[in-house]
């Protein structure tokens, strides 16, 4: 007997185990797999094991989000016991990991070594512990997961997500994409981030099948999994699409007929890539989300439906979510005016763990994304830039992304990153400076400047140019422009 009433996720998985017990729930590509009945049994066993280790409601465990069945068991077992999961990437830099562990002081760690608490290898979990009899009094609003955002500035922030939040997000996504229990998804995304872990939850609450592959690096393995498991969908970030095209050309088109959906997110995608995907997957729902760990998948757009407005980030994912554009004082702005995108909804976090960070995070009950954008008269939302990265040229607000997109669209330019720097003539306040990736660039600065003239207003043409050996990016591929600001 375990508690599941507080967790709509566990209730849904349990219902799927009763509805189709022998259906495959999770497969590790080319290796082991579990059915829905086995998954629920394992979750119950691991709940008993965690209880036997002295863990109780309100405790915290740090779990390494590996592509293993054991990670999934521990993750859901903690939910059943009311223990908060601190989901970490054990391969990430040690400094960040130590910061998180020192701050959170978890009772136990799973799947990795640390000095802050007792560590258990997943293989050492005992599945034969007696069932838990004392059912804790848990609520859907209790914190279920704590995920630390990479953070483009400052220290990582702990995002507290309730049981209701993580189910709400998964339910919203399934509703938008139109997923059914018949889906088979191949997941190459990491489970330590909101995107990948969210995909797992979406699949399991629908009673569909999730196939885990290590990552996208070896595309042969990814394509083999699509073929072997008759996959109907997958998720990716824009950088992965660029990788797929570079390393495999258009081989993926072979599977276009069976791929019913693709979810894309985490960073901006070039317009040309969106158009290309529309051509290569004419009958697939290609759904791109806008969201943050704090407000997972706030907005969605589908490429074919938005073929005349591919630059939009879409509309709120469903009627349980609202997105408003506010000025700096928290006043709602009219359509067409740039301001901060703020989100309210069933998937918006309870708050940051660090109280100081939380104070600045809200306008009333709307979460402040820190992203600048606007809504057009038809309700479509457009992202302009991260608020602090906006370049203010003589009072005109310029998105660095706009300049980067024009430069990156040139043949012979691999990548670039743009920031605002002080105008040496002290006339405009700021001017644009661009760092062009040296590797693979076949043009010099004068040639690039000449090529973008006429494609950008003259004040947006960068004044300063510099080569760079590596574009600073977060692990999810977002450009870290603030790192280049001195």
């Amino acid at each position: 007997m375990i508690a599941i009433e507080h967790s709509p996720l566990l209730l849904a998985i349990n219902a799927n185990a009763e509805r189709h017990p022998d259906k495959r729930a999770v497969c590790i590509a080319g290796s082991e797999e579990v059915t829905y009945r086995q998954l629920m049994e394992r979750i119950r066993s691991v709940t008993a094991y965690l209880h036997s280790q002295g863990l109780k409601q309100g405790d915290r465990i740090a779990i390494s989000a590996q592509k293993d069945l054991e990670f999934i068991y521990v993750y859901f077992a903690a939910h059943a016991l009311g223990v908060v999961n601190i989901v970490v990437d054990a391969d990430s830099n040690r400094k960040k990991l130590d910061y998180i562990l020192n701050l959170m002081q978890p009772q136990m760690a799973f799947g990795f070594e640390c000095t802050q608490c007792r560590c258990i290898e997943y293989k050492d979990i005992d599945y034969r512990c007696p069932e838990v009899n004392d059912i804790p009094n848990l609520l859907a609003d209790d914190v279920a997961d704590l995920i630390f955002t990479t953070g483009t500035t400052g220290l990582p922030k702990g995002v507290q997500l309730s049981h209701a939040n993580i189910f709400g997000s998964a339910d919203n996504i399934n509703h938008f994409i139109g997923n059914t229990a018949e889906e088979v998804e191949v997941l190459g995304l990491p489970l330590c981030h909101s995107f990948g872990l969210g995909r797992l939850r979406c699949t399991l609450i629908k009673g569909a099948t999730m196939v885990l592959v290590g990552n996208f690096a070896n595309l042969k393995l990814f394509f083999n999994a699509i073929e072997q498991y008759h996959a109907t969908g997958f998720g990716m970030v824009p950088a992965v699409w660029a990788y797929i095209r570079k390393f495999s050309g258009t081989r993926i088109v072979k599977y276009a007929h069976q791929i019913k959906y693709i979810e894309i997110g985490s960073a901006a995608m070039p317009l040309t890539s969106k158009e290309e995907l529309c051509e290569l997957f004419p009958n697939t729902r290609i759904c791109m989300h806008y969201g943050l760990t704090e407000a997972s998948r706030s907005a969605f757009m589908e490429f074919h439906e938005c073929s005349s407005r591919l630059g939009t980030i879409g509309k709120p994912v469903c009627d349980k979510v609202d997105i408003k554009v506010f000025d700096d004082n928290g006043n709602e702005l009219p359509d067409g005016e740039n301001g901060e995108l703020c989100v309210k909804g069933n998937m918006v976090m309870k708050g940051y763990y660090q109280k100081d960070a939380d104070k600045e995070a809200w306008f009333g009950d709307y979460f402040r994304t820190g992203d600048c954008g606007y809504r057009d008269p038809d309700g479509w939302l457009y992202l302009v830039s991260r608020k602090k990265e906006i370049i203010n040229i003589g009072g005109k607000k310029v998105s660095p992304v706009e300049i980067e997109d024009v430069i990156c669209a040139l043949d012979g330019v691999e990548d670039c990153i743009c920031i605002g720097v002080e105008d040496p003539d002290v006339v405009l306040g700021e001017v644009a400076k661009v760092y062009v990736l040296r590797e693979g660039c076949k043009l010099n600065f004068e040639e690039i400047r000449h090529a973008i003239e006429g494609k950008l207003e003259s004040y947006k043409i960068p004044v300063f140019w510099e080569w760079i050996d590596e574009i600073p990016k977060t692990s999810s591929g977002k450009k870290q422009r603030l790192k280049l600001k001195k």
Partner: protein
Amino acid sequence: MDNNTIEAAVVRIIASTIHVEEERVTPDLSIGEIPEWDSMGNLSIIAALESQLDVEFPMEDLFELTSVKNIINEIKTIKK
């Protein structure tokens, strides 16, 4: 550049690009097999090999470069 030199250079470049010890870069190591050799790591490795060994991998061959051994053989073929 003889075959032994190519093998040593490939191992050195892969190891230094993804910041792992050379001992881990065995001929049978496949891409994606260690966390450091993810898709972003693979992009960096291919770029580093092309610039440091003065080779250009044909687009159609990139899909087949799935292990250290494949990469070494490909470079040997190009250098012939």
